[in-house]
């Protein structure tokens, strides 16, 4: 198929984002920026895996953070009990995926036959139950406080990846080659691998079947595709990826609690990101995650600066006070949806199509 100029632009933007993320530790040398970059990596994977459901197959689920949480808590609980080590991380990832798969298969087989709205309600119920369970089973999960633990030794800030002649940690462009850097690249490359895998899925024959189900479920069934099996499968696959993303994030944060991995606030973030970026494009996940995470971290600062700069003028500084950042985020969201009805990537890719 011929590419539109819009598609080319979107791909270039995504490539630029990938390059910025790859060199983030060298380009933005402070703790907070690296925190933002790692969060962006994780959310790209999380949102892309959600896009497999909502954008490609037309399944609406509210249980995506639940799977993310299983992966995070799997690693967190095992790192806490077994001590910091790769065995704990790997077992945690496997445990998270296993629990996710059991629940995804159960929810899928029980309810993917019913109408979309009932399915969405069932996922909402399952996610609520898990959220309550996690806060109640505080011996295991730390309840509302969550769990703090240590990551594998490789990721300790004191770890020296390379040393110079004096035995001090080597610096490249003034960046210490320490455990923090290793941890970031663990996040980056895990996310990259998962994202590229998903990109392959959607381009494959399987991906075309998913689109067919979204477009016309009855006809997909009529030409010979077992729709329930495909939907259950993609629900499981999406849950697996979300769970793995949760494990990676837990290793990076060295803390797991309801607010970092399970809350409905994250579910809403995912929904906003996928809508802002554009459903059914994969690239939309990248753009949506970058914009949303950046806004969450920097909109307040930006507004604070703007408010100070306009100190002399009446009303405006008040309007731009940092406390009102959520108000402005809401307005930006409404404008984005109005001007980019298919999301930023979706709308851009449709541009320049007509010859």
């Amino acid at each position, binding site marked *: *198929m011929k590419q539109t100029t819009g598609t080319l632009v979107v791909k270039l933007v995504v490539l630029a984002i990938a390059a910025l993320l790859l060199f983030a530790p060298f380009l933005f040398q402070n703790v907070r920026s690296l925190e933002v970059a790692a969060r962006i990596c994780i959310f790209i994977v999380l949102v892309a895996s959600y896009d497999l459901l909502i954008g490609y197959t037309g399944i609406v689920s509210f249980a995506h953070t639940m799977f993310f949480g299983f992966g995070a808590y799997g690693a967190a609980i095992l790192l806490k009990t077994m001590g910091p080590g790769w065995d704990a991380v790997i077992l945690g990832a496997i445990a998270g995926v296993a629990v996710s798969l059991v629940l995804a298969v159960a929810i899928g087989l029980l309810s993917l036959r019913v109408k979309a709205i009932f399915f969405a309600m069932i996922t909402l119920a399952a996610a609520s139950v898990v959220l309550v369970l996690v806060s109640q089973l505080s011996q295991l999960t730390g309840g509302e406080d969550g769990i703090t633990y240590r990551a594998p030794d490789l990721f300790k800030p004191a770890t020296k990846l390379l040393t110079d002649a004096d035995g001090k940690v080597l610096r490249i462009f003034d960046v210490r080659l320490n455990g923090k850097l290793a941890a970031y690249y663990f996040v980056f490359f895990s996310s990259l691998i998962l994202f590229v895998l998903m990109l392959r899925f959607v*381009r494959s*024959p399987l991906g*075309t079947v998913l689109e067919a189900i979204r477009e016309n479920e009855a*006809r997909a069934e009529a*030409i010979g*595709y077992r*729709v329930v099996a495909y939907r259950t499968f993609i629900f499981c696959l999406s849950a697996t990826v979300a769970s793995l993303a949760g494990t990676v994030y837990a290793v990076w944060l060295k803390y797991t609690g309801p607010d970092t991995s399970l809350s409905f606030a994250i579910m809403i973030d995912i929904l906003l990101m996928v809508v802002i970026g554009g459903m059914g494009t994969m690239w939309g996940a990248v753009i949506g995650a970058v914009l949303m995470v950046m806004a969450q971290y920097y909109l307040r600062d930006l507004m604070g600066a703007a408010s100070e700069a306009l100190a002399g003028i009446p009303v405006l500084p008040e309007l731009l006070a940092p406390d009102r950042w959520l108000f402005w985020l809401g307005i930006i969201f409404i404008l984005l949806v109005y001007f980019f009805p298919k999301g930023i990537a979706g709308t851009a890719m449709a541009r320049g199509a007509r010859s």
Partner: protein
Amino acid sequence: MSTPSLVTQDLTIRFGGHVAVNQVSCAFHPGELTVIVGPNGAGKTTYFNLISGQLTATSGSVTKDGTDITRMSPSARARHGIGRAFQLTNLFPQLTVLENIRLAVQARAGDGWRMLRPVSSFRGLTAKAEHYLEATRLTPLAHQKAANLPHGDQRKLEVALLMAMEPDIYMFDEPTAGMSLDHAPDVLDLIHQIKADPTKTVLLVEHKMDVVRALADRIIVLHNGELLADGPPAEVMGSQIVRDVYLGTSEGAA
């Protein structure tokens, strides 16, 4: 005569108190084209839905080459070689014409679960899809979205999807409905070609009498969900009872 490929035995479906198809027993044979006629509401499309699986019978059975398929899902029946084109156009609107057809080819080939290589690298699938594009004269429209096609071309794509499934049983539900005169012959030619293959069974719901005369080896008449007449075209069209319920009322309109 050869053994039948498709048999419906006492096939019945009730919607509440209404019996839409009532104890229809009929056998269809390879190499035979059967036209199903009847006034509106006679149960023709419902009968089709019972055979291809969109509806499940209240009682009676459907067998394909000796296998009971009465309770199977539509996709399982499709994999058993029953292909269906719909009366109301029923496509994948946001996908291109080529992608639409390739989906049907891919379903037939059983490649739907392949997930690690891009679909574009499956040259065989695309080549076959292009073959059916050519056969239905849709090649110039290959990269148009199905939703953007004119009605006549959407009808052709509907037929192309059925062709690409390469079924044993072809079921056409008014394939030329709403088609302009320059499009209809393309579709009728295709049906002629399928009919020429002695291994294929063709079922056709059709109102236009010239089409019925040109294609039918056999005609069955449904009326109020019941099988009213069954036989060679000349015999059925000549019978008084058929004239009364059907031909008398709608030949002028057709």
